[in-house]
């Protein structure tokens, strides 16, 4: 394969040659270059403007309530008291729950597809997993409300409480209504699975053949080869995929709103309703007329913005590290 590619690479013009061509380019080429540069610059400018606007609009609330805005759990639009702690907590807990459920599944799917699956089954399964990413959020929400939540209420919750007798364990206390943090975690897990799986599949495919052959030559079984040679090599790439999934889960709005129960309360129990930052904004923004209320919602948006930016930066960094490690090993 690499022998076929090499001549093609060699025959490509060198960068210096390309540069020279641009220097002496026609008027049209230069306009084209400036136009595309302009388009490219629009994105970062837009991002900075959005961040600026969100923070500016949220500032009055942050100034009024101070750090308590993110630690108080009073959300009382009638009396003008706002605290986003349950929403921040719910965002983080539902997303982490989703990762705990989705990561083993997604990595398992990716391992099967890249290491075990025969060709005739690999394509269809990969296609279906990718298809999960194409389903609109509100459709997941409807499915969640009509199918998943009743199933959780009638089967999962009674099983945990009555059959396993875990009803008094802090994670599972309270009445079993269905809409809950647990339901939100489940629906998010299904939604982020294709992202983690797709990234993991690519990362596993990028593991050099020599790595696998070396492990097999040392007498490793197929399982040992994957566990000891392939996965450690791909580890940071997989983590990058997981964090990409986390980023998706943090910002997901519609499906979560429909199954989480929308309650401003900090509760350790996963079977109790909760709230997330994104669903809080989506629910309340349209009818928020009071200035402080609008500002509080914008401050929640700013908080969400900060969290997602941090997560995306970490993901980028991990993917970059993987790419560099793969490059130096080859």
């Amino acid at each position, binding site marked *: 394969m690499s022998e076929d590619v090499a001549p093609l690479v060699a025959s490509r013009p060198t960068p210096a040659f390309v540069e020279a061509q641009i220097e002496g380019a026609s008027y049209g080429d230069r306009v084209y270059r400036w136009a595309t540069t302009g388009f490219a610059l629009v994105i970062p400018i837009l991002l900075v403007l959005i961040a600026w606007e969100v923070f500016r609009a949220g500032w009055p609330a942050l100034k009024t309530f101070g750090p308590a805005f993110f630690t108080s759990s*009073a*959300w*009382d*639009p*009638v*009396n003008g*008291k706002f605290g986003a702690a349950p929403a921040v907590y719910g965002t983080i807990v539902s997303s982490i729950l989703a990762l705990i459920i989705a990561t083993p599944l997604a990595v398992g799917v990716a391992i099967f597809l890249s290491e075990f699956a025969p060709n005739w089954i690999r394509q269809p399964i990969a296609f279906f997993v990718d298809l999960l990413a194409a389903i609109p959020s509100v459709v997941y929400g409807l499915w969640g*409300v*009509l199918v998943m*939540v*009743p199933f959780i*209420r009638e089967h999962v919750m009674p099983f945990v409480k009555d059959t396993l007798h875990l009803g008094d364990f802090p994670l599972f206390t309270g*009445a079993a*209504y*269905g*809409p809950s943090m647990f339901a939100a975690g489940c629906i998010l897990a299904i939604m982020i699975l294709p992202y983690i799986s797709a990234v993991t599949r690519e990362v596993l495919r990028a593991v050099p053949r020599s790595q696998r052959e070396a492990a097999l030559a040392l007498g490793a079984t197929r399982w040992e080869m994957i566990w000891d040679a392939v996965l450690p090599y791909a580890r940071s790439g997989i983590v990058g995929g997981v964090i990409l999934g986390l980023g998706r889960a943090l910002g997901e709005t519609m499906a979560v*709103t*429909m199954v989480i*129960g*929308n*309650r*401003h309360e900090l509760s350790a129990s996963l079977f109790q*309703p909760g709230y997330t930052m994104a*669903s809080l904004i*989506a*629910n*309340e923004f*349209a*009818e*928020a*007329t009071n200035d402080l*209320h609008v500002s509080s919602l914008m401050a929640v948006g700013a908080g969400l913005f900060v969290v997602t930016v941090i997560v995306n930066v970490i993901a980028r960094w991990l993917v970059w590290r993987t790419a560099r490690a793969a490059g130096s090993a080859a």
Partner: protein
Amino acid sequence: MRGAQLAVVTAASLAVLACSSGADKKGDSARGGGGLTAGGADLTGAGATFPYPLYSRWVSEYAASTGVKINYQQIGSGGGIKQLQEETVDFGASDAPMSDSEMVKAKGGPVFHIPSVVGVVAIAYNLPGLTQPLKLSGPIVADIFLGRITKWNDSRIAALNAGVALPNSDILVVHRSEGSGTTYVFSDYLSAVSPAWKSGPGKGKELQWPVGLGERGNDGVAGQIKQTPGAMGYVEMAFVKQNRLTAALLQNAAGQFVMPSDEGATAAADAAIAKLPANTDYRISIVNSAGATAYPISSLTYLLVYQHMSDAGKAKKLSAFIKWALTKGQQFASPLDYAPLPSSMVPKLLARADSVASGTGR
């Protein structure tokens, strides 16, 4: 060919720019060109989602009979008030009357509240095995939503429902998760019948709920009640019928137990209006209204219009539409599960609509 395409794209983007800058400007020239932004409509309105099915029926019936096109966008009461304040629409619509501070922010001067129809909020519940509708009173409903009554077989519920086998199960309270006019009306009612509710959660489009689950939209609340045995919530009357839910009989101010109905709501409005002074601005509540047949959780929903519109032509058109809605339009209310306005209200409202048309401008 490519040149032609480019020209079309350029023209389209210029049109978009023209529209957006038009919306920003408050000048009369921008308003004159308002037809462009509304896609050719003669009048534009925005606001409450609750009366939208009726308003959209009105708009199509009115266009068919008069040729006047009206564009109504259901963006929520809050959004409708904001757009009216900024004069980006010709009329607003809201389930809750504007507050004094909101009235002051209106850039086009004094605002008229014109009630257009009466809404009915039902208490719906899911108790399998019960054959007759449950009887409830306002203070009991308030205490259920406050979390003070938690079981269906609570002695206070049982006292009103002698002979009914009430289950010893938890009441699951379901409420709206997003800001809504329905919540406003319901909490307005609870504040009227329960001092503890008034000093606790209070009334508003969004509240700090002491107990319960939040579901999005009337359909979300109705769906949750339908799915969950033991659930109770409040929904617009239309959703009780659509989802085949059971509605509770509610005790009114006269002590009678009444089912939610359009007649009951019209009677509530009639009784409330009878007490008003002649120069009322209609920013009133009709919950817990007197009258033997009045249903207690009834509400007026409003069209919001400027008393003096700067565009005389639009003022005339809007006035004519409002007068049509208050008279011929009322026949469409009952089939869509709204209650028509009591006939006692209509003459004064027509006079008010007339004064919009004759507005002299600023």
